[in-house]
């Protein structure tokens, strides 16, 4: 098991207003609660990793963050606006400020990679040359410039996730949501995806909420930073972890942990211990 050092103190300049705030959120879809009494926040420049085994409500929580599922009770503030009782049409402009990567990519299979990545820009009716330039830039960021004219069906699982990341990033979102971005991928491809997330975190300082059940990915994000000179992810000096990357853990719809890597590995909660071991 990883022996994590105590985190460095958070930067004093960080403004107190959280980007996302869950307040006693419960979601049930008419049956037993999928999420129950969830409360947490995501601050500016903060990356929160949501851990938990399969089927505990991680994806539902992520969708709720973007107003994609109805709440039974509680309140969700996104960019300071209460989205929990907001009409769908009022949510669209707020969602345009976020980027979301779905579990299997959720690319539109009848559209080319170019049209998938440019989806929002096409809706905004930007000129084609501007769209092409932005798409190439976004695809280059994820290392898939050569897939410009291809269809999602001809891409591998890892490539599809990277295209989904490119689509989420094209409008330079203020907040990112990743739903199991490495789920079902081989270790090498997973590392490539994690490197992209770390790059977005360290280079563009975009706050995010990352759902995963892979501890290895979570610890990699905490203990690595992106080196722009080398254009790659490097291990942080021994004893250091990223102070803005913190953890949440769900079990059976309840939030059972909220804290740093140090707190996580020293948690006495039996479920957390079992999950880590």
């Amino acid at each position, binding site marked *: 098991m990883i022996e994590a050092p105590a985190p460095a103190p958070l930067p004093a300049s960080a403004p107190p207003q959280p980007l996302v705030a869950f307040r006693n959120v419960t979601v049930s879809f008419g049956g037993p609660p999928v999420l129950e009494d969830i409360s947490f926040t995501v601050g500016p420049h903060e990356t929160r990793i949501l851990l938990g085994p399969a089927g505990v409500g991680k994806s539902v929580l992520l969708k709720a963050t973007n107003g*994609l599922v109805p709440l039974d009770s509680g309140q969700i503030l996104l960019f300071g606006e209460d989205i929990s009782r907001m009409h769908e049409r009022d949510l*669209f402009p707020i*969602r345009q400020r976020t980027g979301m990567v779905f579990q*299997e990519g*959720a*690319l*539109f299979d009848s559209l080319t990679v170019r049209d998938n990545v440019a*989806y*929002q820009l096409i*809706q905004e009716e930007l000129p084609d040359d501007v769209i092409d330039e932005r798409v190439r830039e976004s695809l280059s960021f994820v290392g898939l410039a050569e897939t410009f004219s291809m269809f999602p069906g001809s891409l591998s699982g890892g490539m599809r996730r990277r295209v989904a990341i490119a689509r989420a990033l094209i409008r330079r979102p203020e907040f990112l949501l990743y739903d199991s971005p490495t789920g079902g991928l081989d270790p090498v491809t997973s590392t490539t995806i994690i490197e992209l997330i770390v790059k977005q975190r360290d280079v563009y300082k975009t706050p995010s909420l990352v759902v995963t059940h892979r501890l290895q990915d979570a610890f990699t994000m905490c203990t690595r930073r992106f080196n722009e000179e080398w254009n790659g992810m490097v291990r942080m000096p021994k004893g250091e972890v990223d102070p803005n990357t913190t953890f949440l853990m769900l079990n059976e719809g309840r939030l059972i942990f909220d804290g740093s890597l140090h707190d996580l590995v020293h948690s006495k909660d039996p479920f957390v211990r079992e999950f880590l071991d």
Partner: protein
Amino acid sequence: MAFDTIDSAAKQLVLTVQEFSLFALRAVLNLFSPPVYWSDFTLQADIIGVGSATIVIFAGFFTGSVLAVQSAATLAAFGATAVTGRFVAMSMIRELGAVLTGIMVSGRNASSMASELGSMVVTEQIDAMRALGVDPMRKLVTPRICATVFTLLFLTIVADFCGILGGAAVTVFMNHQNGTQYFHQAYLYLRYPDILQGLIKPLCFGFIIASVGCFYGMRTTGGTQGVGRSTIQAVVWSSVLIIFVDLLISTLMVSIFSR
């Protein structure tokens, strides 16, 4: 136990009707506020209208032919084979052109809409669209409904025309009657209420086909099996509704125009 099952099924039916009504209303209201995706309307009109033209032409032609074969045999007993043209034209324009085109397009397009949208739901593409700030009702449902209503009108006219031609082919080449007489009879007894009846129906049927197809597609659950279930429900309910609404419109029009 049996009472509980009936009670639950009845509540489910009422709930489905309520959800469908709200869904259809929302799809229509989307036309009166921006954004309206006209490019998607054009694309869908091409897929639904041009794509269905071949089956509608064949279905219309053969239906008109069968009508001529059957009616000629019956009319011969009364020595009235000369009115075959009138019989075929009236049947096609008032009733069969619209209903058969509706059922053919329903089989082809309600199923396609339900399976396409259903696949998008189960693969989270609809959620992705919402997350990208685009309303799937505006982008996917409203253009499909408008395109189906618009194209079914013209497809019905094509089916009527082909049906009358099919009847003429049988009358002239199989029954060895006079073609001019056939067309004269077909035209002579046709009145505006007949044409009106034949053109109002496809507008309603188009709305039924697309709204039912999209409704079942958008509420798909349960993976690929759920997509299959939605497709079946879309075709079955759109076909049943077409025939039911046909009965309502026919009754109404006959009572208004007394013909």
